[in-house]
């Protein structure tokens, strides 16, 4: 065990000290910031001009006040209606993009959760204008009806109108968030499996090509050698992720603290905040760690076995690893189906069977546990993944032991499987 640890240490340190590790670790957060910034920029660009019907029961929102406001800012206009649009016309044909029903308000409290009903989804850049208009009318109204003193100013500061956007065409607005996170998590696992899996393969090939393999196996068991490599590279992947999570956490908190002073950045942070407010973040992170490691062990050991069996030839490695890579890609295909229908049989079985579960289950979990993913499915999937990677590690160990000392022979999967199941 001590020797395995020495191997893990070497595999880890040589990789973490490499320039490519430092660069890729730094580059990702930069891309992340660029992405967030880009999202804010696009939100600003895609700001739409809305025509909104206001059905006022309070009597505060007079036609004059609204028209005055429309003249100040023509980007979105409010129209005062006495009734809700007819039921038959509650869609785009009504001529309005949405409507707000204002109940009889107490002017000293305002209303923090007026509902802005829309027929389509609009970004906060667009709905923000409507909210701002309502608030300006409200403030002017308060100004008019109050003799301002300190106490009254305090009331004014506390009393404002908040707007919650509700898409009545699609009651499950949260499912879009879940879908987004599901895709993101699934693809992240996919990239980890391919990138770090092939790193294991290349590492094993390097040992074989350098002819150091026989030197090492005269000191440690081949299995320790393989395990040390897989665990070492797994630790590298984990390190990179921890750095990123810390980074995201810091940026996010700085974003919150800096508040509105950063313009669209704050809006983007707000968006992220709303998004993660609707899902169980600790659960997703915990499951992510599990499926990422489980999937990594499952695939990395297979890639390691291939690395041990091939010679210097990269093409040979590619053709042998093709079936494995296909399994990963197939998982992505299943994931796409799972996101579309997270409780369908394809999604359920795809998230239970070990080869696809790391990707497919990660896409389903954001929809909710135990709502969409019953606990028995999660438990079964985890147990099978553990059993699965124990098997592939054992299987790969047998191939590795024979392959690592074999030179000059082109190997097929059939032969590799025979190595695994013969004695010695």
């Amino acid at each position, binding site marked *: 065990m001590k020797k395995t640890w020495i191997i893990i240490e070497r595999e880890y340190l040589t990789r973490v000290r490499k320039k490519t590790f430092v660069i890729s670790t730094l580059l990702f957060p930069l891309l992340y910031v660029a992405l967030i910034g880009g999202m804010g920029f696009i939100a600003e660009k895609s700001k739409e001009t809305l025509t909104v019907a206001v059905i006022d029961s309070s009597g505060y929102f007079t036609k004059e006040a609204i028209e005055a406001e429309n003249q100040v800012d023509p980007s979105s206009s409010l129209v005062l209606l006495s009734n809700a649009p007819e039921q038959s016309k509650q869609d785009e044909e009504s001529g309005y993009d949405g409507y707000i029903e204002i109940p009889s308000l107490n002017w000293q409290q305002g209303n923090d959760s007026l509902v802005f009903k829309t027929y389509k989804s609009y970004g906060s850049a667009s709905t923000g204008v409507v909210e701002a208009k309502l608030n300006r009318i409200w403030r002017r109204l308060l100004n008019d009806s109050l003799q301002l003193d300190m106490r009254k100013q305090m009331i004014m500061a506390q009393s404002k109108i908040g707007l919650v956007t509700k898409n009545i065409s699609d009651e499950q607005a949260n499912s879009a968030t879940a879908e987004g996170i599901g895709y993101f998590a699934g693809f992240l696992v996919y990239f980890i499996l391919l990138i770090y899996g092939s790193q294991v393969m290349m590492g094993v090939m390097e040992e074989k090509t350098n*002819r*150091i393999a*026989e*030197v090492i196996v005269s000191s440690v068991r081949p299995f320790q050698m393989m395990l040390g490599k897989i665990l070492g590279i797994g630790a590298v992947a984990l390190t990179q992720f921890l750095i990123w999570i810390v980074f995201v956490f810091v940026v996010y908190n700085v974003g919150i603290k800096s508040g509105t002073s950063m313009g669209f950045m704050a809006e983007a942070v707000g968006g992220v905040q709303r998004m993660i407010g609707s899902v169980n973040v600790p659960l997703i992170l915990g499951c992510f760690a599990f499926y990422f490691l489980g999937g990594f062990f499952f695939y990395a050991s297979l890639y390691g076995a291939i690395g041990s069996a091939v010679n210097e030839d990269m093409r040979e490695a590619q053709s042998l690893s093709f079936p494995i890579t296909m399994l990963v890609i197939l998982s992505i295909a299943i994931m796409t189906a799972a996101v579309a229908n997270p409780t369908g049989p394809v999604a359920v079985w795809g998230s239970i069977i070990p080869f696809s579960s790391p990707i497919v289950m990660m896409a389903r979990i954001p929809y909710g546990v135990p709502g969409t993913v019953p606990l028995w499915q999660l438990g079964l999937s985890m147990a099978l993944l553990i059993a699965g990677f124990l098997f592939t590690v054992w299987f790969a160990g047998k191939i590795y032991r024979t392959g690592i000392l074999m*030179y000059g022979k082109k190997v097929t999967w059939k032969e590799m499987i025979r190595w695994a199941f013969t004695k010695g």
Partner: protein
Amino acid sequence: MQPTTMDSILSLKHLRKHFESQKAVDDISLEIERGQIFGLLGPNGAGKTTLIRMITGIFYPDQGDIFFEGKKFDPLVDVAKIGYMPEERGLYKKMKVGEQALYLAQLKGLSRQAAKQKIENWFGRFGMESWWDKKVEDLSKGMGQKLQFVTTVLHDPSLIILDEPFSGLDPVNSNLIKDEIFRLAQEGSTIIFSTHRMEQVEEICNHIALVNKGQKILDGTVQAVKQQYKQHQYSVSGEGLNKLSMNQAPFTVVSQKDNTLIIQIAAQHNSSTVLRFLLEQNVEISAFHELLPSLNDIFIQLVGNTPTARTFEKI
């Protein structure tokens, strides 16, 4: 330090190792004594590497037993006392020389501090002190071989197995390594030396075994083996050799050059009868000595008709 006590450090009893349809090692027994420099010889594909891999714990024998230092061989423990330099050898190219040596020593069970001290010792002995921070890929082939040798013997193994240790070395470095091999044997280490280069074997080894087709076909001291395979040829120098009457001579002439004859003594005769015959012919002998076959001759005689890459016998 016990240079030549006659106890056995390694004892192989009827080892067998079969691969799929190949008998790589087919019932080989060997005794190797402490302090010996043991030559393990054989053509390519004879089963030497498989045999060595069993001794180093890389392969488990299918049948037979290995005893190391008098006890049953336990690969997990005993590998710490064995240093193995395989024929297919190399190092991590991107690693620094010092770290590389530290890593391999730690895998043999040395602590970091102990390893560091020993490495500094060896680097000093070989004039490699300035190499510590060099990358392995920047070393010449010969330098790499020296480093490889150091990493093999670093942990003071009692059994050192060297497979073609001189390949890639210039004569100066060959001699350096050769001297180290003698010194290590003097200090009580046992060395198994595997090579195709018979002149090196004659120079270095005191005991040899020849393996062919997975079986041991020869085993003994270098002198004994040469005696066993001698051709009864002698070299005679002297005046009057060109006027010899070969009637009833107890030998035939193999070759002649100036005043020297190479002769083959006929069966049922010996050197005394030859000398008596020569004296009777009034030859004035200036030199007379037996020609022993070189190991190379014996090797070729014994395995010469084996194709170099043998096709393994089907089980």
